[in-house]
């Protein structure tokens, strides 16, 4: 016997069904009447806004949501006026517990079965997890072993992979302690030579005759004490990268030999007549401006042009002060690991002092200060008394922030300092929170001695 097929197995949803469905979704949903008073508020809306349904029903939607655009351009009001919908508008709402949440909202009009407008509906999605992830990614200001969020350094980060890929010579110019070798290593690690050796030599650390044999090696009998062949750094770096630090210290004679390596791609060890092929990438570094040395006839221009195919200029730490909190945290982690300590932070006073210091020794000096402080610190937070005495006498007294005398200026200065500290001195984020232009922030920071 044939059974009758039910062509309409699903009944139209009742109001209870609709509420159950709306309460089970993760998006907040509420409806309002034409006066913007809430008529429906689902479970997710309660959860996201922190406002209980019983309290929300009958309330004005702007008092339940407290979004940053409620007064200026309410999307529900706009929909009621124009009939147009709003899709994926990103705003922030303020919960009764004081927490701000980023949300994405959609809004449109609600019509009855006759097409008459009876109010509006808004759905919204909590973006805080996505926002947190975005911030996490943004916080990854690490490139190989280099940490920075400074825009100049980030620009260098962005071109490093291309430089690494090119296999051209690279000249890194930057003051002492600015991390030239770290950049050289990063280039090596990103290049196809990464599996081969990275050999570093400081050209200023050895007398000229020793440097030559160090660079190119020698053969047995080349001089009195040459009992056996000794490979030079160029040979040790075979297939890899040689990093010539303080290249400005090279004597004219060694400059000529280095030029030959770069031109002919070969070199001769001391006492040898058989040239050796130099399959090596040369990265050199200088703290001086080589162009100036050329004008003073202290450096060969032809060598300079060979070394300077790609140039990276590293800023001194005073020009990337926004990196100081990031670097401090990184050094604390590093020394905690090395010293077996559990130091978690530095006091605000210490941070203020570190932010004001001029760092003639650049990042290396900051690292040394943190190492000293961590040796002295016996609790969880580095305090002013843990800093080196000479450092204190210079900075604590002479570089403390200017204290504005006018009460309003004092409040403004403190407000800026508070937000700067909260955002790890990230000026973009601070300007965004204070809703002022970056240049205005910079001007105010300068005015209050915060730069």
């Amino acid at each position, binding site marked *: 016997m044939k059974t009758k097929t039910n062509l309409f197995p699903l009944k139209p949803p009742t109001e209870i069904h609709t509420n159950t469905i709306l309460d089970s979704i993760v998006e907040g949903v509420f409806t309002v009447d034409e006066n913007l008073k809430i008529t429906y508020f689902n479970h997710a809306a309660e959860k996201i806004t922190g406002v209980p349904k019983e309290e929300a029903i009958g*309330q*004005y939607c*702007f*008092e339940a*949501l*407290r*979004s*940053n*655009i*409620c*007064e*200026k351009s309410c999307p529900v009001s706009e929909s009621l006026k124009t009939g147009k919908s709003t899709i994926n508008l990103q705003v922030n709402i*303020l919960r*009764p*517990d*004081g*927490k*701000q949440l980023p949300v994405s909202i959609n809004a449109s009009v609600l019509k009855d079965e006759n097409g008459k407008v009876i109010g509006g509906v808004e759905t919204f999605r909590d973006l805080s997890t996505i926002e947190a992830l975005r911030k996490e990614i943004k916080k990854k200001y690490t490139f190989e072993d280099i940490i920075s969020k400074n825009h100049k350094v980030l620009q260098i980060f962005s071109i490093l992979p291309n430089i690494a890929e090119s296999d051209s010579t690279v000249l890194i110019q930057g003051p002492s302690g600015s991390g030239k070798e770290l950049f050289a290593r990063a280039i090596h690690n990103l290049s196809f030579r990464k599996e081969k050796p990275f050999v570093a030599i400081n050209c200023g650390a050895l007398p000229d005759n020793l440097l030559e044999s160090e660079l190119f090696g020698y053969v047995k009998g080349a001089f009195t004490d040459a009992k056996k062949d000794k490979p030079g750094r160029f040979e040790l770096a075979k297939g890899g990268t040689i990093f010539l630090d303080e290249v400005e210290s090279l004597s004219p004679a060694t400059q000529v030999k280095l030029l030959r390596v770069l031109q002919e791609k070969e070199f001769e060890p001391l006492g040898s007549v058989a040239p050796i092929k130099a399959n090596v990438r040369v990265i050199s570094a200088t703290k001086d401006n080589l162009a100036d040395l050329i004008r003073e006839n202290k450096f060969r221009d032809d060598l300079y042009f060979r070394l300077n195919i790609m140039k990276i200029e590293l800023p001194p730490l005073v020009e990337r002060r926004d990196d100081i909190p990031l670097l401090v945290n990184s050094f604390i982690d590093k020394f905690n690991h090395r010293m077996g300590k559990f130091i978690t932070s530095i006091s605000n006073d210490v941070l203020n002092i570190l932010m004001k210091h001029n760092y003639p020794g650049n990042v290396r000096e900051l690292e040394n200060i943190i190492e000293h402080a961590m040796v002295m610190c016996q609790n969880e937070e580095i305090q002013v008394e843990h800093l080196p005495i000479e450092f204190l006498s210079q900075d604590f007294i002479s570089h403390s922030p200017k204290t504005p005398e006018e*009460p*309003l200026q004092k*409040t*403004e200065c*403190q*407000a*800026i300092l*508070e*937000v700067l500290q909260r955002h790890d001195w990230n000026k973009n984020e601070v300007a965004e*929170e*204070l*809703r*002022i232009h970056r240049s*205005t922030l910079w001007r*105010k920071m300068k005015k209050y001695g915060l730069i």
Partner: protein
Amino acid sequence: MKLLAIPNFGERISPRLDYAESLHLITVEENSVIKKETIKIIPHNLLDRINLIIGLKPNVVICDGLSDLIYNKLTENKIEVIPWIHGSVNEIIEKYLNGDIQVKATKI
């Protein structure tokens, strides 16, 4: 005599002091309003907004939501802040004069 500052959105208290576009300034004496004026605060960024409110020298700010920054700066400048209040401005003033406004417990 006391000066109350109440950010408003039409006849209601503004939902957020940080984004309010208008501010009622109400002078009260012996439980009655003796002067009421309204100023626009649209173009002010957060720092200017804080400075503006402090510069008006109110004794009390009655508002709904606000950031920790504004709250801290106002209270540091000896301004009493009564936050998380919503409703009609006139009703709230009346409640304030009758001593019926309670400061809600908040994170701040």
